[in-house]
């Protein structure tokens, strides 16, 4: 009922606008508070791609969700009901995605997630109008498990915060890691002191450590771990080793191995051009999140060349084709609209004064997620 009324209202405003059929994109992302770095990178990557496309018929409404689920829902309602956007994007955090995406796609809009990929939206809760351009949440952790096998680790100590994404991370690692577990610890979300956990690692007899601690938690853990002198090899997903965060970790991160679907030294023309132009425009090296924002925009642009979002079936088919030059090189969507892609192993190095990553191998080739089989659409 409500969907029909809205669609009619949309058609009316389109008719009123006359000849110039503008495409409207709504981006609600995190631009203030502690997690603002990620949202700003996604936004900058996205806007860079739009600028390079040279299209002036696309307008983007950008709003700050403050990392609060209720604000995110309110903004998405506003963009759909009041701004009448065609496509929504921008979400960074899984819990915000769970709040926003089901409502947005139920109102007939397209949602392109540039970051969060909670398992519920990849499996039973998948939807024809929802696309994830980054990864399913478990992917990088699975790759870390696969790498640990290749590196010959037999006995891992694993830790993550006690919340759904943390549980998913440890599950993802265990799904691929064949060795034993010397310990499995859930820390408090937002915890900043890891002395107690590091002492347990020291006493556990492990031969390797896997951790998923996004944002400031990871910075704290790495600094304290390096200073403790435990010295076991550490593996983690790219989130704690991204371009923005590495500078705050410093030497403590050097040599640490991490898994990522993107790196600034992936050698393909799209990526080389992206890294150079991003650096030129914003005066800093792009991060993982910037590459995801850039890819999201280019995916959308590739589909817009074929069809208008108002023609939902054609636009969806064009998105599914994923006919764009990704910074990751090979990129395709699985049946649940989540990426099938290579996941790389990177090592933290120092280039001059800047800490950054270098690819040292591939952990998983053409990797899809474990939830696609549950998706019926």
């Amino acid at each position, binding site marked *: 009922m409500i969907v029909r009324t809205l669609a009619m209202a949309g058609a009316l405003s389109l008719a009123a606008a006359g000849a110039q059929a503008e495409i409207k994109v709504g981006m609600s992302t995190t631009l203030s508070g502690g997690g603002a770095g990620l949202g700003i990178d996604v936004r900058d990557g996205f806007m860079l791609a739009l600028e390079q496309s040279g299209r002036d018929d696309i307008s983007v409404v950008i709003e700050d969700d403050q990392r609060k689920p*209720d*604000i995110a829902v309110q903004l998405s*309602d506003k963009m759909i*009901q*009041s701004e009448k956007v065609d496509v929504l994007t921008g979400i960074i955090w899984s819990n915000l995605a769970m709040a926003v995406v*089901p409502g947005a796609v139920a109102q007939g809009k397209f949602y392109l997630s540039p970051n969060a990929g909670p398992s519920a939206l990849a499996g039973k809760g998948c939807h024809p109008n929802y696309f994830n351009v980054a990864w399913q949440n478990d992917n990088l952790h699975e790759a870390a498990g696969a790498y640990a096998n290749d590196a010959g680790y037999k006995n891992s100590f694993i830790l993550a915060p006690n*919340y*759904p994404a943390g549980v998913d991370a440890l599950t993802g690692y265990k799904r691929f890691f064949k060795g034993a577990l010397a310990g499995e610890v859930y820390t408090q979300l937002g915890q900043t002191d890891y002395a107690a956990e590091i002492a347990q690692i020291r006493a556990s007899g492990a031969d390797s450590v896997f951790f998923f601690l996004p944002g400031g938690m990871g910075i704290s853990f790495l600094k304290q771990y390096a200073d403790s002198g435990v010295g076991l090899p550490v593996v983690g997903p790219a989130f704690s080793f991204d371009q923005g965060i590495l500078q705050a970790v410093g030497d403590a991160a050097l040599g640490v191995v991490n898994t990522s679907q993107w790196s600034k030294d992936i050698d393909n023309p799209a990526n080389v051009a992206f890294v150079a132009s991003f650096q030129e425009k914003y005066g800093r090296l792009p991060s993982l999140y910037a590459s995801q924002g850039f890819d999201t925009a280019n995916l959308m642009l590739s589909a817009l060349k074929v069809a208008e979002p108002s023609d939902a079936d054609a636009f969806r088919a064009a998105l599914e084709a994923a006919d764009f030059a990704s910074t990751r090189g090979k990129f395709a969507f699985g049946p649940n609209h989540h990426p099938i892609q290579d996941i790389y192993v990177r090592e933290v190095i120092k280039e001059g004064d800047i800490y950054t990553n270098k690819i040292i191998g591939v952990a998983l080739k053409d990797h899809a997620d474990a939830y696609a089989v549950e998706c019926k659409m």
Partner: protein
Amino acid sequence: MGWPEMRAERLLNACVLLALLAVPLWAWAVDEPFTITLATRLAILALAGVGLNLALGLGGLVSLGHAVFFGIGGYAMGVLASHAQSYTPLILWPVVIEGTKSMPVIWLVAMGASGLAALAIGALSLRTSGVYFIMITLAFGQMFYYFAISWPAYGGEDGLSIYVRNGFPGLNTLDPIQFFALCYALLGLALWVFARIMRSAFGLALGAARQNAARVEAVGIAPYRLRLVAFVLSGMITGLAGALFADLNRFVSPVMFSWQTSGEIIVFVILGGVARLFGPVVGAAVFVLLEHFLGGLSEFWHIWLGAVLLGVVLFARGGIIGLIAGREVRRD
């Protein structure tokens, strides 16, 4: 309070009540559904504030833990609706209890559950006073917050999504204006109850206990019991607001339990004017409008929000209503 001031405040209240009705109706007429959503949010947050105002304004109990009741109300809705959505019973033993999508039932459960929580928290916290009371209510809030994050059954930090708004007999709650009407009516009802309590013997005794507990005790009333009753009523109203808020967003998450939520509910009450009937309504209105308009102006809009709050505390004692309608003579 002098007569002219009282008349001015009444006039202001009537204007606020009318404006809160007129704006969404206008939005409905010109087909601006988001404005209606914004007004609904305002009415619900104001309702949460009315709840707190009972404890804070009348009882003088500075609770920095009202997010507990807001969150319990939200989760009452989330848990019941999610079980109804997945057709799994809530409890199998000793009796089978099914989930529900009916708003009146959800409201009763939300108010009952938050009332019980308020009884337990209040019974323990009211043994303390002053800063200790502020801090112990904060501590209970943190307990619920961490529990909600780490309890996996209902989504943990991810929260719970409800795909379709719950129903109310005879109304289509999916229609923004009808859902608004429902929230508006409940806010009106809560304000009426609040006004009645304010003038009742109970309300007068509560106010007297705030000003001078010893004198109340001397006439044979236990201030502890008065405060406990006020705290429970206060928690129930805030719990009802939580259930509505969850229905507005079709989503609940532990953020509803966070201490920032408690802080924001306090802000509504103080911004508008403590112990004023319409204080929370005016406060919530100003907060929602600031959030909406400042958010679009600058990435760093929190600075300006902070400056406005600071200005109100420092220079507009008695809140915005006090600023407009004149300060009450009665100070404590």
